[in-house]
């Protein structure tokens, strides 16, 4: 197993905000004690609902946020203690791609100026060779012919093309890992497939690793080596086969919330007319934080918070008192529900 390139050690991130209705401050524990190793060349997906702390985790990995407690390590050194040479290496080797490509590209610069600046700043090519260097990288992310894209402004590109530019920008520095925060959610499904394909190709040709943050389990299943499920600031399950065999009730809930793609097996239409209530569960006081939403909660869940522990031989970890029992249940038949016309 390769060396972890990034490591989180008991990381907590607390955001404070002024209380809207009176004196004092509100505290939000966006990330609440996360330990995580990210290995060289692996694709790690981080999934969870909004507010689970996924994006905060990405910011911590990119040193856009500093953790309130705990530390983030880059190749064994804490980010807060990086010497300047190591800091530069960190900035080069850990790159970012964001959700909305339009707002992560400068609207007033052509692609050539925008990327050319980075080439110059990091001395990736001599001024005479810059254009050729950029063309090579644009071609590598599937923008052909590359020269025609260099002259364009971001608004002259489609969403998928913009996202490719953002990926090319990250790839130019030969990063060891790219942190991508919801890179797919602003794209159409056909474009999503192309970007997923591009990520996989880049991984194959350059062994670049990815940390992909997403709420789309279907897309993550198709590219992730490992997947971490976050709930209210904590990792509740992490492993390679959580889609086929979830051990945590929250993972199971997320998987079951996926819409069926078989109209004959629609669950909503076959459901009884029982009113479905909006969920307004308050954070649990003590015990397991998922308890208010959990269908499997028992007495111990109210008193004792479960720790993340190994649950099978394959290295899956789950934070649930009843993980073994839940893992033994069969996940809802996940894939594929529609036979492909091409297969028949």
């Amino acid at each position, binding site marked *: 197993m390769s060396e972890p390139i990034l490591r989180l050690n008991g990381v907590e991130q607390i955001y404070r905000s002024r209380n809207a209705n009176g004196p004092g401050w509100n505290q939000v524990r966006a990330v609440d004690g996360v330990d995580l190793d990210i290995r060289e060349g692996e694709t790690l997906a981080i999934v969870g609902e909004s507010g689970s702390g996924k994006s905060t985790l990405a910011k911590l990995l990119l040193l856009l946020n500093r953790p309130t407690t705990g530390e983030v390590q880059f190749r064994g050194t804490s980010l807060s203690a990086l010497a300047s040479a190591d800091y530069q290496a960190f900035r080069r080797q850990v790159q970012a791609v964001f959700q909305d490509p339009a707002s992560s590209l400068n609207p007033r610069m052509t692609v050539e100026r925008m990327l050319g600046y980075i080439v110059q700043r990091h001395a990736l090519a001599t001024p005479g060779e810059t254009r050729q260097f950029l063309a090579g990288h644009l071609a590598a992310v599937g923008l052909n012919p590359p020269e025609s894209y260099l002259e364009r402004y971001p608004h002259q590109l489609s969403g998928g093309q913009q996202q490719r530019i953002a990926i090319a920008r990250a790839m130019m520095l030969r990063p060891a890992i790219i942190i991508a925060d919801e890179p797919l959610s602003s794209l159409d*499904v*056909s474009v999503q497939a192309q970007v997923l394909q591009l990520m996989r190709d880049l991984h194959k040709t350059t062994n670049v690793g990815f940390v992909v943050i997403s709420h789309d389990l279907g897309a993550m299943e198709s590219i992730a080596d490992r997947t971490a499920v976050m709930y209210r600031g904590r990792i509740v399950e992490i492993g390679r086969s959580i889609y086929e065999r979830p051990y945590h009730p929250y993972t199971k809930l997320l998987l079951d*919330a996926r*819409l*069926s793609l078989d109209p004959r097996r629609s669950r909503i239409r076959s*459901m009884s007319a029982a009113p479905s209530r*909006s969920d307004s569960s308050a954070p649990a006081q003590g015990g397991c934080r998922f308890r208010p939403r959990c269908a499997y909660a028992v007495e111990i869940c109210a008193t004792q918070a479960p720790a993340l522990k190994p649950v099978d031989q394959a290295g899956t970890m789950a934070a649930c008192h009843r993980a073994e029992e839940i893992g033994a249940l069969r996940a809802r038949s996940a894939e594929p529900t529609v036979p492909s*016309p091409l297969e028949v």
Partner: protein
Amino acid sequence: MSLSPLLDVRDLKVHLRLGPNVVKAIDGVDFRIMPGECVGIVGESGSGKSTMARAITRLMPNVNIAELSGELSFEGQDILAMPDGALRALRRGRGFSMIFQDPLGYLNPTQRVGRQIEEALSCDSSRGSNRNRVHTLLDEVGLPDPANVARRYPHELSGGMRQRVMIAIALASDPQLLFADEPTTALDATVQLQVLQTLYRLHKERNMAMAIITHDLGVVAELCDRVYVMRAGKVIESAETVRLFEHPQQDYSRRLIELSTRRLPRELQA
């Protein structure tokens, strides 16, 4: 079914003027909804699905319209030619309503949500009975403790609760047809399922026709009786949902279904 359609659209064209060019946003679309039916409109961004809903509900934003033509009839009344007063009457009583992807953009941030629902109710009843109807509506869309929710401002509610408030506003006029433009795209998967369940229950209980505009074929498979697939301003395929999923006639539809199911093209599946 020998019933006449609730909404009958023939050869709808919406051409927009964009600088020197004319964009054919909708280019000759036929579209029909029967009473109490749930129809899906799918397509990728730019296919014209939202423009179509806006043209039908006459909610076109004030852009340069180069051409707006076709036959648009709702219960036999011509919507395109309808004067504003009659259109308002239709929206207010048993006509059509619309909900959108982003409820926050359509709710007034400075008004309590109860007030905003009340505004959508017909104004012929007293204050007290209106309040009761607001609470009934909030309860009907699945919000717990309606009296409390009614006193909230939009920013105090979660995304799923806001969308439920939007649905309550849309239901206030007791519509026969509800247009839902990407109603759950901005919501988490677990919340999405709940909101879709609620929509389906209302559709059945009220025998209300629904047109769901979405890019997500899962939503269609779960809810819709019939589907229109749109691409570049045209309907390229329309079929019953089961038929579309099992025997898509167009390559484009087949590819959409395939990508939604397995996310990566076959050749790349390890």
